[in-house]
């Protein structure tokens, strides 16, 4: 790698770290503080609660884990339920990685893949279009690593603060997460993607009513496919 390319990679890495510090990190910290409080309220140890942020690093799955362990559900049921809520990571990764040039995809990508979260995915889907292809891998790594790095201490903080923070504040912090994602959806421009968001969003709660564990997979596959063909049927945009 030439000196300039190396410099620009390092710059992109730092740019990713810098851009993560701000709204994205704030959203994650808020969500993890709320989650830490949930772990405390559910009677789990601080170590176990914090470790879920480090190892699972996917809030909906972590919430499922804490609630089901607290209820004493069978281990198999807990692991299955947590893994099912994470199914979204497959298509998320499949839409993120092809935007990175093949030459930049090394084995370390299997490690960086752990940094793929709703936050980093939503931001990359929006910003990759404005970032030079050769810098995307470094930018994503810097961004994703920063988001992941703040999550673990934030969870611990939330656990320790639990009971000292009024419940409405905890609720507000927990609400910040879904709000952020919902708001970032309004910035999605492609018609097919907008249709998918609409169909998925409307069907989500309905399908959850009769198939809670499988609802995300069902809505994604059926709703997403419907949106894809609806977009094709509507033809080229004028």
């Amino acid at each position: 790698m030439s000196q300039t390319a190396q410099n620009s990679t390092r710059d992109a890495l730092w740019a990713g770290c810098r851009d993560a510090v701000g709204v994205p990190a704030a959203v994650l910290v808020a969500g993890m503080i709320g989650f830490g409080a949930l772990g405390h309220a559910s009677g789990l140890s601080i170590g176990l609660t914090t470790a879920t942020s480090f190892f699972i690093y996917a809030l909906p799955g972590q919430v499922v884990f804490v609630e089901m362990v607290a209820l004493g559900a069978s281990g198999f049921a807990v692991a299955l339920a947590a893994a099912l809520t994470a199914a979204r990571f497959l298509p998320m990764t499949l839409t993120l990685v092809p935007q990175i040039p093949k030459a930049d995809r090394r084995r370390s990508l299997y490690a960086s893949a752990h940094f793929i979260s709703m936050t980093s995915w939503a931001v990359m889907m929006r910003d990759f279009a404005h970032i030079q292809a050769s810098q995307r891998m470094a930018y994503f790594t810097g961004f994703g690593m920063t988001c992941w790095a703040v999550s673990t201490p934030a969870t611990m903080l939330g656990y320790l603060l639990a009971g000292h923070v009024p419940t409405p504040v905890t609720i507000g912090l927990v609400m910040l997460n879904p709000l952020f994602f919902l708001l970032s959806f309004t910035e999605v421009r492609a018609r097919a993607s907008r249709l998918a968001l609409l169909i998925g969003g409307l069907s989500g709660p309905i399908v959850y009513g009769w198939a809670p564990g499988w609802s995300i997979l069902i809505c994604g596959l059926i709703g997403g496919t419907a949106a894809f063909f609806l977009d094709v049927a509507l033809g080229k945009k004028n």
Partner: protein
Amino acid sequence: METLFNLPQESAWWAWSILLFAALGTYAWRGLGVMLSGKIKQDSPLFGWITCVTYAMVAALVVRIIVLPVGVLAETPMAYRLIATGSALAIMVSKKNGLVAAISIGTLLMIVLGWLDPLSSL
């Protein structure tokens, strides 16, 4: 497999072993994505279809979290969540780059509504 999971529930490492499996189950999707991504071209219809599936999945999850939450959010009336969400969306759509304003006001509304709890006095 079942015997492995049916350790005495009071033992601390019962919970830690579930964490191990939950973490592996979560990472598997990410790792599988990396493995399969080499076969997908960004300008193919397949990529377009997967993008649609992804957006439908995350939208289903996010709307479910707001409408039918588990955890602390479940203890709040749906009306509060909808008011906070609706206001934030309205601010976001009404002006460009209003993300920080929209998210702050939505969160603050949620806190204030939870604090004053106007529904409980009806």
